[in-house]
């Protein structure tokens, strides 16, 4: 903590005040949890909403291949969530809206990966960056150092709006309708921390795409997807979006449904807000497996969902932020570092042509190109990231983006610079070709670090990469362009559904042994914004998956009709035939004959499911009332700090504010939208909880409520508060907050806390 305070001091002037304050609050919450003053479930969802995620083995045990070991974690019984030991290493997810990075941010990311993680920054399939093996005590410092370069981890995990993604080619694409970047930025900023996005039963993912036919935005697999579109309205060309809702992968993949064929740009943010409100109100809260918006839409039907959203939209109080950003949208522009120049003539280093063929995209702007930096398994070392920052400064300035294919692109490279750029990348070990080809396998973390992982997605991806890259020169062009994506389980973080060849990890018990397998999925479509989901063909032992890839691709090369796509080919030969083709590969030799089948890729341990834990993808469903109660506790803690420092005035004011917050938490169980205005909170609290005697204690009657109103009077009159008076007020504030907790629990148990005004039936549950 001492060190964290030092960074806090050092970076004070470089952090946005609201971001700095949020991190201070999180640090206090950590302290409160350590003191046992914050419930572990509330803390779990709190940290998730700060991007602080669990990691495999954080329940304090690990199977070593022979037995389960209890890990030596000095924190003992202290937890950071249900079955999550404090000292166990965790993951930090860092939100990178639309994947946009600049060199300063890359350097900060590199530094932090070295000091707090394992010197690797991992690019995810949703354009985030992840660190693994992070200690929770280091997270406030990490957040401060990120905030100093304009990055937040807020709402990177948990039941909130996750990173807003967008095509990495937005603004430079030859086929886009218009640049979606400023809209993605506006949407990300608007929804971040918005009160209407804080009470979801599950996460909510948003994506933007500049066109319909290319894969970059993957809008159809998102909860909310917007594809750039123009329309002539009243004789004028207007910008807007083809607007989709309810897509999602996971165990039960749904393609998004069309909500509006042309949503005018000015309606983007209000509609997102209205959808958030409907989702918060009506979305499932108890059964996480059915809590994504796709299930809500499936239950209601798209027509009814649309009607509810539009009804909600009509009721919204206008917000200037809906339109403010539109005045600058058309001016949004990236500026290149170098003048445009063509590639002609210059000397080409060895390996350049192969790299150029797969890793360079000619921009819409003549003389400029986008260069893709291929990252194996999405991993980049601290040294490489720093080196890449130097390269960016030399060739493009700050036009850098992460991609959903776990790579990084440098945009606005003057074409004449491409050979020098390639050489510079090669020197830091990033000159690999094959971006976006069959070699460039995408994989989720799987059993390496994910608590839900069944099989080693990264191990398999690594094996496939190495085998395919050896053959890459001889690969048929039709095969070279196929995509392989691997997930460690059915949850599909590796996006296996939308790959030509996809795999997800499963287990099969054979002769009393657990054997790692992958379910083979064929014929998914990355194009058309993830236009089709693949077909499950059957389970194959993990160790035979490379043979599956060879067999399927060989047959495609041999039997495809002229320019027949892989999807069409798979559709034509059919599931039965494809399954038959792979039948012999499903066999597992006896353990005594070949024990390697009973181990996973890259893992010498005998395979077991013992290490699977409870995932945190779904987060904890914690109501807004619970969060507000937790916030009141924190505020009271701060009041105590002021008191200890002798600032009595601040102490009593803060303690009173904590009481008001606790009262507001209770009011929220009945009136979700209650204002933050103190007078309104007190009136509503009196009306709903005092007059009805809901806040009455069995023995103390209305005494605790009186503390609140008395504190207000004390504050109004107080001239020169004495120490004992201040201490009494602090103690009464604690009693009031405790009583608020009891009342909340009582209401939850009785299910009395049913929301008014059409709120969801389970919104106030505990």
């Amino acid at each position, binding site marked *: 903590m001492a060190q964290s305070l030092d960074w806090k001091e050092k970076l004070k002037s470089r952090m946005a005040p609201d971001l700095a304050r949020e991190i201070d609050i999180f640090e206090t919450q950590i302290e409160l949890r350590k003191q046992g003053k914050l419930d572990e479930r509330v803390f779990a969802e709190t940290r998730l909403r700060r991007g602080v995620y669990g990691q495999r083995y954080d329940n304090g045990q690990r199977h070593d291949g022979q037995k389960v070991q209890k890990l030596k974690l000095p924190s003992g019984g202290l937890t950071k969530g249900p079955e999550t030991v404090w000292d166990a290493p965790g993951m930090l997810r860092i939100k990178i809206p639309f994947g946009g990075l600049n060199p300063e941010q890359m350097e900060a990311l590199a530094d932090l990966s070295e000091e707090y993680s394992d010197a690797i920054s991992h690019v995810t399939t949703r354009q985030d960056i992840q660190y693994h093996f992070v200690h929770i005590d280091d997270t406030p410092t990490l957040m401060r150092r990120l905030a100093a370069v304009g990055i937040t981890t807020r709402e990177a995990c948990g039941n909130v709006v996750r990173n807003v993604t967008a095509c990495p080619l937005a603004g430079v694409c030859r086929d886009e309708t218009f640049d979606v970047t400023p809209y993605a930025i506006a949407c990300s900023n608007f929804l971040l921390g918005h009160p209407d996005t804080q009470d979801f039963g599950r996460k909510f993912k948003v994506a933007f795409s500049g066109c319909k036919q290319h894969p970059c935005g993957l809008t159809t697999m998102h909860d909310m997807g917007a594809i750039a579109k123009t329309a002539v309205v009243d004789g004028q060309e207007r910008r807007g979006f083809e607007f989709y809702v309810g897509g999602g992968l996971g165990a039960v993949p749904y393609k998004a449904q069309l909500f509006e064929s042309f949503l005018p740009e000015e309606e983007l943010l209000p509609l997102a807000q209205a959808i958030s409100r409907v989702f918060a109100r009506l979305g499932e809260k108890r059964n996480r497996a059915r809590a994504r918006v796709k299930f809500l839409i499936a239950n209601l039907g798209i027509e009814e969902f649309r009607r509810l959203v539009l009804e909600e939209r009509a009721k919204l109080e206008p917000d200037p932020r809906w339109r403010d950003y539109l005045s600058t949208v058309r001016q949004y522009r990236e500026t290149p570092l170098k003048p445009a120049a063509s590639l002609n003539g210059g000397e080409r280093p060895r390996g350049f042509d192969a790299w150029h063929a797969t890793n360079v995209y000619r921009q819409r702007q003549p003389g400029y190109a986008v260069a893709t930096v291929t990252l194996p398994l999405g991993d980049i070392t601290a040294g490489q990231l720093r080196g890449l920052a130097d390269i960016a400064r030399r060739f493009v300035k700050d036009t850098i983006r992460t991609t959903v294919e776990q790579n990084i692109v440098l945009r606005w490279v003057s074409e004449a610079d491409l050979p020098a750029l390639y050489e510079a990348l090669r020197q830091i*070990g990033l000159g690999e070709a094959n971006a976006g080809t069959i070699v460039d396998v995408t994989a989720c973390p799987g059993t390496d670090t994910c608590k839900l992982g069944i099989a080693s997605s990264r191990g398999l991806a690594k094996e496939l990469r190495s085998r395919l890259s050896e053959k890459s020169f001889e690969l048929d062009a039709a095969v070279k362009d196929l995509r392989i994506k691997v997930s460690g389980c059915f949850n599909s973080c590796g996006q296996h559904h939308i790959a030509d060849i996809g795999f997800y990890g499963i287990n099969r018990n054979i002769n009393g042994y657990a054997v790692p397998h992958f379910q083979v999925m064929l014929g998914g479509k990355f194009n058309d914004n993830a236009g089709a989901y693949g077909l499950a063909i059957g389970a194959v032992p993990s160790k035979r998956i490379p043979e599956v890839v060879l067999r399927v691709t060989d047959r495609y090369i041999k039997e495809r009709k002229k320019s027949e796509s892989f999807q069409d080919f798979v559709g034509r030969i059919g599931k039965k035939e494809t399954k038959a083709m792979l039948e012999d590969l499903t066999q597992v030799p006896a353990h005594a004959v070949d024990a390697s089948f009973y181990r996973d890729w*890259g893992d010498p341990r005998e395979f077991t499911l013992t290490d699977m834990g409870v995932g945190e993808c779904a987060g904890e469903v914690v109501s807004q009332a619970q969060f507000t109660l937790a916030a009141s506790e924190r505020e009271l803690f701060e009041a105590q700090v002021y008191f200890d420092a002798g600032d009595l005035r601040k102490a009593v004011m803060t303690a009173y504010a904590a009481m008001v917050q606790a009262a507001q938490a209770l009011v929220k169980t009945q009136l979700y939208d209650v204002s933050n205005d103190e007078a309104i909170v007190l009136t509503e609290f009196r009306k709903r909880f005092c007059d009805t005697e809901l806040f009455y204690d069995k023995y103390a009657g209305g005494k605790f409520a009186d503390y609140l109103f008395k504190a207000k009077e004390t504050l109004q009159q107080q001239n020169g508060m004495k120490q004992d008076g201040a201490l009494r007020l602090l103690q009464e504030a604690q009693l009031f907050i405790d009583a608020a907790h009891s009342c909340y629990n009582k209401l939850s148990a009785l299910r009395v806390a049913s929301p008014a005004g059409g709120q969801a039936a389970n919104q106030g549950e505990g």
Partner: protein
Amino acid sequence: MDLQKINVKFFVEEPGAVSPEAFVLLFNAWIQAADGEYYDIADYAHVEAGPGILLIAHEANVAMDNTGNRWGLLYNRKQPLQGNNGEKLRRVLKAALENCRRIEEASSLEGKVRFRADEALVLINDRLSAPNSEATFKALKADLETAAHALYGNADFVLERESEDPRKRFSVRIKAAGRFNVAALLANLDKGTGNGNRRAAS
């Protein structure tokens, strides 16, 4: 300056003598023998000049590390140490060397991995307390010399900053004249400080 987060790296004599996978197997065996001390293995052999194969623990990570395209054993002390800087450096050097010895003696590696004991890299994994500057070097030089002296006894040695790039972590290379092996360095550390000749850092 209160030194913490001390890292020490000893380089292998013959890179490529065994494959990185051999260390995954070895570290797994260490985990099996350690009863909960080590949490996990992270395999980054697929990235160039990267952190290699790491054995993650609470107190310190041990890695066969390839940063800078030089394979070696990196001991990364994470938890705070007590004592003065000289004592802390010695403790970390000793812990690193003990891991080196364990690797050299591992039967699964058949004696193929040997460490160059004439060179040690000391790195402070904390940019706040030890920025990579000449001022840090000056402030720590005496402590580093004491540690180098403890390591190499009477032999001559030089201290040099690995890089002057202020973005990088503070790191100093200790290079000794003569031939050494891991056992000899451990013996030196156990003996305590000697009175060797010391040459000023370049």
